[in-house]
């Protein structure tokens, strides 16, 4: 539905008005749901250019898309947000392509952006073709078949018992204390204080010659339980900042949410 509409209506910018009138008169329902997102719509529009995708005019394509969105608005069709995001981006791209490049401006040029869009379309098109090819292959259970009467295989089960060193040590600890074993000694508080962290960090930082993830400084017993881990992470981070202030370490983070790393600062 959507595809045929696009084919009919966007043969050239000049025709848009006339076609729009006709469309309104026919109360045509534009089935935006028929498209699998803006890229799919662009691909469909692109087909009207009847050229190899590598030679596609991205400028023309942007105009076609914007016209489509405009039309949808006139017909009071609610477009999903990503269609509008794409429209805004294409409008931006269009201006980039039309205006002379600003030498001050960093970032990709209009041509680069257009080339990338063309690449995306070509790639999507290629995946579609391969998907069709794949589904057209001889298939198991349709064109070729597995054994119809599989013979039962008798299972002989062997059980392998295993244990870890931790199990062993915990087992031993359990006996020697004659007490129900509890994995962690600190049972009252799940807190790792700034003072504790600072003391710990002072002891360890001498070994941090290379950039090391701050997480590796968390004390034993504070790494698994989320509450304890949070506490230890916060205090270790605060302690690290304190050490930075004292000029003992350097700290860095490459980007948002990337690991925080630190390293000894040689004086």
């Amino acid at each position, binding site marked *: 539905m959507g595809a045929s509409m696009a084919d009919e209506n966007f043969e050239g910018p000049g025709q848009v008005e006339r076609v729009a009138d006709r469309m309104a008169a026919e109360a045509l329902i534009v089935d935006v749901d028929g498209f*699998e*997102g*803006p*890229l*799919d719509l*662009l691909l469909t529009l692109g087909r009207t250019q009847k050229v190899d995708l590598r030679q596609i005019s991205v400028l023309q394509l942007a105009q076609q898309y914007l016209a489509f969105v405009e039309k949808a608005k006139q017909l009071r069709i609610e477009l999903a947000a*990503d269609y509008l*995001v*794409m429209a805004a*981006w294409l409008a*931006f791209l269009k201006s980039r392509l039309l205006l002379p490049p600003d030498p001050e401006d960093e*970032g*990709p040029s209009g041509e*680069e*952006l257009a080339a*990338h*869009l063309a*690449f*995306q379309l*070509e*790639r*999507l098109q*290629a*995946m*579609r*073709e*391969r*998907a069709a*090819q*794949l*589904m057209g*292959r*001889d*298939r*198991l*259970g*349709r*064109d*070729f*078949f*597995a*054994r*119809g009467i*599989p*013979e039962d*295989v008798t299972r002989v089960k062997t059980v392998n018992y295993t244990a870890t060193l931790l199990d062993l040590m915990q087992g031993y600890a359990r006996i020697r204390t004659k007490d129900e074993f509890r994995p962690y000694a600190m049972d009252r508080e799940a807190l790792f204080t700034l003072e504790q962290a600072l003391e710990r960090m002072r002891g360890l930082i001498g070994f941090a010659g290379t950039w090391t993830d701050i997480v590796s400084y968390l004390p034993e017993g504070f790494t698994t339980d989320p509450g304890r881990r949070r506490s230890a992470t916060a205090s270790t981070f605060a302690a690290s900042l304190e050490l930075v202030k004292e000029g003992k370490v350097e700290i860095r983070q490459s*980007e948002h*949410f*990337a690991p925080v790393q630190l390293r000894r600062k040689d004086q």
Partner: protein
Amino acid sequence: MTEETEHKEESLFAAPPMAEQERMCEAILFATAEPITVREMEARMPHGSDAAEALVHLRKRYEGRGVHLVKVGDAWAMRTAPDLGYLMQKETVETRKLSRAAIETLAIIAYHQPVTRAEIEEIRGVSVSRGTVDQLLEMEWIRFGRRKMTPGRPVTFVVTQTFLDHFGLESARDLPGLKELRAAGLLESRAPLGEMPTGGEGEDEDEPGAKGQDELFDD
């Protein structure tokens, strides 16, 4: 021959003659509907057996017959010859019709594996619904691969042996047109430029990231 002798020395009993080993492989393969690896076969055969060699003979024996020996990933299976499919209409299992989104997602995973959800979304330009991935997982056509060593350590998807078996592929290298796609640079994961809308969450947006299939197929 010398190898035979060595085997004899190594093991308490000599491995059975090759013709016998071939029979054994044949029986094992006929008995199961699922592909079975050389290692699994050898685990069942007498000590010192060489299933790989027996399979070479067996494959030859079934050439041109109504049933073939096919390789599926690193496993083997007996399958009817595809040209005789029309005789088996009764056996045809109605496969659930896959949605267009599912088919495209499957193809993208097959050609770009290992691939993250964000990368699939980047290629398709729309978000991938949970249902689509779930369906493919449930059909056992895809599975989780190793996590990507990029921020957020996103999970990746790869195709399974069941997928290869279903589509009669010996390995993912045999996907139709894979070479051409690679030559055309269409399997490279290019980073989107600037503010390019991607459709996905864009978890690893600025992650031109791993070579994907290249990595997989260059070895």
